[in-house]
């Protein structure tokens, strides 16, 4: 089975900010593999191991620096990596991202496309449905347990009403929950081996994506302004140096909660 895994390069939590001049997320600082995507990658590697054959391709759209994230994916065990990177793709919203990433995925002709639960910078938790639509494939989201057999995938997933079990024939698109597995850490051998694995960078041109369908030009949403969030009441912060429990108890007593 050939599995394509979508991985996003996201800024570190501590440095996340929107640049007031561009009104876009500041992507200039340190970044890393979106933690939720390690679950998707882990699931792909397990499916490949279980069937004893196949290929796992990590696919990302983002700045050049996203190659660090792809190297991490290769170190974890992906066989190959594809980066869609192009100045004209910066600032892409869901419409533009799903169009370009969809082209890169279609080119791979995978049996299964796996995505993570959400991108930790945008919290959209939606891209899979747009990708499934671009590829015209069946889709299952929020999957906490996944099995594949006889050309089908079956996923158990939570909604507002409890757990569904949904089945889809391959080729299909599946987005997994952060509890589906415990992602492996890359081994030293994996890290060393990653450098030798094939890593390809594609421009929008390579994918046949017209520049007016990418980046801000191809986006159908826009940011008009930024404001401060409503003020919250007082909030206290303490570091545990051995007596945090006492301080919590004091606080609860002060609030007449104990």
């Amino acid at each position: 089975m050939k599995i394509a895994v979508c991985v996003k390069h996201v800024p570190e939590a501590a440095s996340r900010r929107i640049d007031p001049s561009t009104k876009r997320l500041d992507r200039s600082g340190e970044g890393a593999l979106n933690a939720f995507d390690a679950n998707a990658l882990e699931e792909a590697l397990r499916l490949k191991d279980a069937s004893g054959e196949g290929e796992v391709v990590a696919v990302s759209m983002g700045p050049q620096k996203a190659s660090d994230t792809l190297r991490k994916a290769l170190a974890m065990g992906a066989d190959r990596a594809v980066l869609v990177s192009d100045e004209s793709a910066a600032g892409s919203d869901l419409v533009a991202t799903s169009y370009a990433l969809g082209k890169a995925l279609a080119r791979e002709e995978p049996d299964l496309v796996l995505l993570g639960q959400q991108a930790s910078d945008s919290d959209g938790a939606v891209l899979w449905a747009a990708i499934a639509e671009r590829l015209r494939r069946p889709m299952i989201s929020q999957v906490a347990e996944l099995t594949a057999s006889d050309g089908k995938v079956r996923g158990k997933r939570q909604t507002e009403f409890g757990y569904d079990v949904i089945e889809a024939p391959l080729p299909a698109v599946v987005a997994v929950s952060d509890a589906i597995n415990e992602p492996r850490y890359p081994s030293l051998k994996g890290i060393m081996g990653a450098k030798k694995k094939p890593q390809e960078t594609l421009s929008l041109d390579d994918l046949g994506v017209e520049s007016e369908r990418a980046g801000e030009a191809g986006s159908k949403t826009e940011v008009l302004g930024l404001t401060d969030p409503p003020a919250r009441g007082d909030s206290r912060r303490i570091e545990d140096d051995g007596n945090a429990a006492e301080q919590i108890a004091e606080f609860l007593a002060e609030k007449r909660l104990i």
Partner: protein
Amino acid sequence: MSILVFLEHHGNELQKGSLSVLSKAASLGAGDVYGVVAGSGVRELASGAGKYGASKVFVADDPALEAPLPQPRVDVIATLVREQSIDTVLLAQSVLAADVAAGLSARLDAGLNWELVDIEEQDGKLVGTRPALADSVYVQVGWKGEPCIGIFRSGTFDPKETGGEAEVVDTPVQLEDFSTAATMIEQAHEEQQGPSIEDADVIVAGGRGLGGPENFTLVEELAKALGGAVAATRAVVDAGWYPYATQVGQTGKTVSPKLYVACGISGAIQHKVGMQSSSVIVAINKDPNAPIFEYSDLGVVGDVHEVVPKLTELVKQRKRSAS
């Protein structure tokens, strides 16, 4: 303007979230407001949307729409948008609605703004407000071209009855092959077992930071000492550590106790929407950058295994000395 609101149903009920969005849309006074109900045997439900402000409700009634799966609903709404010249589609956040909205966005190359907490009309165009980056900034967002698609954050508004009547109109159902390829093998139904946490005055909640299902005893003992109930995050429910009935958040319960103690919980938005109206929030987390600290009254950077048992002991001592 003509606004179409996706009316989600479960069993024989239109969902409160959808009706809230419908009332909000109607309150804009920005043109026609319609609803769409898609399912099997759902015609009866449709007229109920009239009193929340829909002048017309389109009904897609077909056995192929029985299961609450998103892709066939994209087909239904895309057809409606084209045939009825709809320029705006609004939805209330849910697992189903998010997937419908994103599929529709790609199908129609139409802009989708998510996490909306407000929307207004400015010079004939819609402008939305949405929090971002763990709610540290509020963003005013717009749409380029039509249709405009928006998803509202869970629990943002309450439904308002204004007492109108809706015309119920059948709409044809034509589905794409790939849209009906996924099938529901077993559909979720509310799981009744487990304690009810909605009425508890004190809730102690545990997340993945507890390290394993066996460590839920830490949380249970603190809850017992405080005379409260135990809750959990989706991550630990999905992993089978704790029952779904105790889950707080977007796909779990919404609670507003006097005290909410979060132990080893990162504080994802989907968790926050279920507990943000608690009067006092105390969080214990070893990561100083955890989003939960952004909305805690008392944030404790520390290890749950150290802090929680000591706190339990102290609470017990105080209760003993008070009695």
